[in-house]
């Protein structure tokens, strides 16, 4: 079928324009692909196949690119990782192609000595860092009843020599106390300690304690980076007894007989099998319980023969239905709800449980199915009390009125919610107290304390405001009173000012009451209302 036929069928106009161009293109690359069969070329259709025919010109190339053989020379080199760097060894290296190094032996000898090449392997010379201390530090921090200074030195030198390979250190540890000691008593002491055999744990414990102490001495723990601190902690908390215990266990495990080994292996396989099955089993069991959860049909039918009995039955069924619904809401494995039929059901549950226990007492799945949900919870990580503090985890008996919120919100909230003047005032109080406006370490505890502080500052400001208001009011009233007295003196009319001063007294009293109540309750709003009340009264007064 050609494209012409297709066009015909689809009622498209005859010859399309780009066709001849395509043809012209095709003729281009084709003749190049010489090695390919025509059929293979046709596979590609209009597009030429992306196969690059192999050219067999390797022979020509080989002869064409022949260069004179590379020159090699027995170069001297040194190794900066050596203690004695004067050792000069020789190895064969390709001669540098730069013409500068071309001249004869006498010419190159002098510069060679100057810039002798360093071994490329010198950089791999890594040394362990061992604890270092001087006499004073030893006397101050490292004294031990069990270890003499001399032996500690010996231990540290061994650790350095053998790069902390403890099995080797222990193997080669042959401490001989110094033979000649000036003090005869000390010599005796040394002889006593000489025969002391050290276990690997002893050596480790001593070295780690020395190293940890010296780390602390050289660098305060607060300034250490995490890795250093961790290392120090690890060394400081080395427990030789525990380590020895572990080795004893390991040895016991190592020396099991074939039968024991086989038994343990089979037990492990069994355990794996049981664990794999228990999931399935509990699922099945749950399903079974769901099916068996029909209302109890024990007891005789005689009870339901009366209409009262029937009513009771109906109620019971409805109750059962309700609990079922609730259950499905709670999840398929919710605890059995207590209801009128609860007693009955509980009994049946117990019975089932006991039978379940009887069935599968051999494995860990023998625990009853109520474990189901709690097992699900244990998957969540259990936090210790310290970690809970660390992560700021809190537990609420019920959800707070404000609902869940990010703690981060609280960093800004108390200040932004105020008017700018108020904010300014609060900030100035904070500055006065030397507390930063934004918390540097907003942990839960700090946030709470900050909150508390802000509330108190607020309170303080409010109270100051109120006192100022009251003061001004008193002043006004006094002034008015004075005026009135003057007027009364002049006019002899006393009624009006008396009434005004009476109402002012009431207000003051009210404010006083509010003030005393304020600290115990959330003061902000209350005092605000008081304030507005006061200001209203003063406005009225001014009128």
């Amino acid at each position: 079928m050609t494209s012409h036929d297709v066009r015909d069928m689809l009622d498209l106009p005859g010859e399309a324009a780009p066709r001849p161009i395509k043809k012209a293109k095709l003729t281009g690359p084709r003749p190049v692909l010489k090695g390919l069969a025509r059929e293979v070329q046709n596979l590609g259709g209009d597009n030429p196949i992306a196969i690059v025919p192999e050219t067999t010109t390797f022979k020509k190339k080989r002869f064409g690119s022949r260069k004179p053989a590379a020159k090699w020379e027995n170069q001297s080199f040194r190794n900066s990782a050596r203690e004695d760097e004067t050792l000069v060894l020789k190895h064969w290296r390709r001669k540098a192609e730069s013409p500068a190094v071309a001249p004869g032996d006498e010419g190159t000898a002098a510069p060679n000595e100057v810039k002798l090449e360093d071994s490329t392997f010198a950089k791999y010379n890594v040394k362990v860092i061992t604890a270092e201390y001087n006499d004073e530090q030893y006397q101050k921090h490292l004294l031990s009843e069990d270890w003499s200074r001399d032996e500690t030195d010996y231990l540290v030198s061994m650790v350095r020599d053998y790069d902390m390979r403890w099995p080797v250190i222990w193997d080669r540890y042959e401490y001989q106390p110094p033979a000649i000691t000036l003090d005869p008593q000390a010599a005796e002491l040394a002889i006593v300690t000489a025969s002391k055999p050290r276990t690997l744990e002893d050596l480790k414990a001593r070295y780690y304690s020395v190293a940890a102490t010296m780390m602390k001495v050289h660098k305060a723990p607060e300034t250490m980076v995490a890795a250093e601190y961790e290392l120090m902690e690890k060394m400081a908390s080395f427990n030789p007894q525990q380590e020895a215990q572990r080795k004893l266990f390991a040895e016991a495990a190592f020396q099991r007989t074939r039968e024991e080994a086989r038994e343990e292996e089979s037990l492990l396989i069994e355990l794996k099998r049981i664990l794999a099955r228990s999931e399935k089993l509990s699922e099945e069991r749950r399903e079974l319980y769901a099916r068996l959860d029909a209302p109890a049909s024990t007891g005789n039918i005689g009870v339901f023969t009366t209409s009262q009995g029937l009513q009771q039955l109906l109620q019971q069924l409805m109750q059962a239905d309700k609990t079922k619904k609730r259950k499905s809401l709670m999840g398929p494995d919710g605890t059995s709800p207590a209801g009128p039929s609860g007693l009955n059901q509980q009994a049946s549950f117990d019975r089932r449980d006991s039978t379940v226990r009887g069935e599968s007492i051999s494995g860990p799945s023998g625990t009853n199915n109520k474990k189901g949900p709690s097992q699900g919870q244990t998957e969540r990580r259990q936090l210790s009390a310290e970690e809970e503090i660390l992560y700021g985890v809190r537990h609420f008996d019920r959800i707070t009125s404000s609902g869940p919120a990010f703690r981060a919100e609280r960093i800004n909230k108390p200040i932004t919610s105020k008017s700018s003047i108020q904010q300014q005032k609060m900030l100035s109080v904070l500055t006065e107290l030397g507390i930063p406006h934004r918390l540097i370490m907003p942990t839960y505890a700090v946030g709470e304390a900050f909150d508390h502080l802000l509330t108190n500052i607020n309170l303080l400001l409010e109270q100051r405001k109120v006192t100022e208001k009251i003061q001004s009011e008193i002043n006004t009233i006094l002034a008015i009173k004075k005026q009135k007295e003057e007027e009364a003196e002049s006019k002899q009319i006393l009624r009006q000012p008396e009434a005004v001063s009476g109402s002012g007294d009431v207000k003051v009293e009210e404010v006083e009451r509010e003030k005393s109540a304020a600290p115990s309750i959330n003061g902000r709003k209350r005092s605000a209302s008081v304030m507005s009340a006061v200001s209203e009264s003063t406005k009225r007064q001014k009128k």
Partner: protein
Amino acid sequence: MASQTLTSSMQPTDVYGGDEVSAIILDPGFSSVRAGFAGEDTPKSFVSSYYGVNEGGQVFGDDAIHNPLAGLDIRNPMSKEGIVEDWDTATRLWEYAITSRLTSFKQADPRNNGLNDDLKDLDVEMDGVEEGEKPLEEHPLLMTETAWNSPKNRERAIEIAMESWGCPAFWLARNSVLAAFGAGKATALVVDVGASTASVLAIHDGLILKKSIQKSHLAGNWLSSQIRTLFATSEPKVELVPHYTIMSKTPVDAGAPAQATYRTYEKEVTDSFRALEEERVLTEFKESVVQVWTGPGRLNSPMQAGMTNLEYAKSQPGRVFEMPDGYNQMWGGERFTVAEGMWDERAALPVAGEQPVQKGQTISEMVKASVNAVDMDLRSQLLQNIVVTGGTTLVNGFTDRLNNELTVMYPSARIKIQAAGLTAERRFGSWIGGSILGSLGTFHQMWISKKEFEEFGSSVVEKRCK
């Protein structure tokens, strides 16, 4: 050529960390001395440790010492424990091993450089070498030693290398460590059964654990003595006739007395020479006939149906061995019994003038003792890296038996035995390890240089080569 992207000067160091400084590795043992250049896969120079002495002096090398006409007294500079006893001769022997094949010292006067002389005068030439050019002035020397070598011997070794051979740098390594390196392991339990000593010891990170060193004499030479006992006690007695005594032989039926014409020598052949030549026959016997019962169980332990393993072994097809004189015999169960003493002290054949084999000397007990002497944390690791080396371990079935014994001994541990498949790699295990070590670029910082030797004296070797 086109595919080569790295320059050839960079390539080796980048690929395997090699940087060769044409170091020479010298690995002396009780039966042979191996020497060669670092970086090669087998020692170029393989010389018998035995040397001959006659009135003309000492002769070295296989070409010279097997000559029955020379009236040689055959000796060995090494002690039974693989430690050098006769330092003067050992020095000359090693020098021969190095200079005869490896180094090209400046040729002396052709009249007395030995190249044109016949073998009898070779010893004279050796003396000449000492006076002239120092043989190793351009080559660092890496020498091996046994794990139980004495500090005095070690100092002696560096003195020879530095003072008489003029090495620019020297290092002394334990042969068991090198055997482990040769097997590609830095932590291993090395089971080395050579000619004079069988040893088992643990290596951690390239350092031997001294407490774990176990050694016994149940090695190649002891096995030869077992075969001698076997020959002497079998019915009829088997005569051990070395090759040099035979002029011609005619084939005989199995078990029939030999029909051969013997050679006679004007000069009396010494006993030691005969022993050396007999040893060669025994070596052949060991290689072709002797087999270790591979297990399960011991050779004398009962199988099912009230049959012992030995009876079963006897029922298996035997092997024929023809002596140099033409006497031949089928060896059935006996070929198992001679090697059984290495594993079961009660099965060892009595050897005249020797103490009976102790339980602690058997290979499996040595492994046990060695493993028990290291830290608990290392044990399972060691059992997973057991390196078997030494010529005598090539006895048929050795590694299988070792594996069987250890799986019974440590049922809960994983046993993995690393035994080179190639004969040369097993025989030259420690030399190959030395070859690897000596060609590493990172090893250059370890060499004890001549300057250090001059500064600190020979005690530097104790300090450095741990």
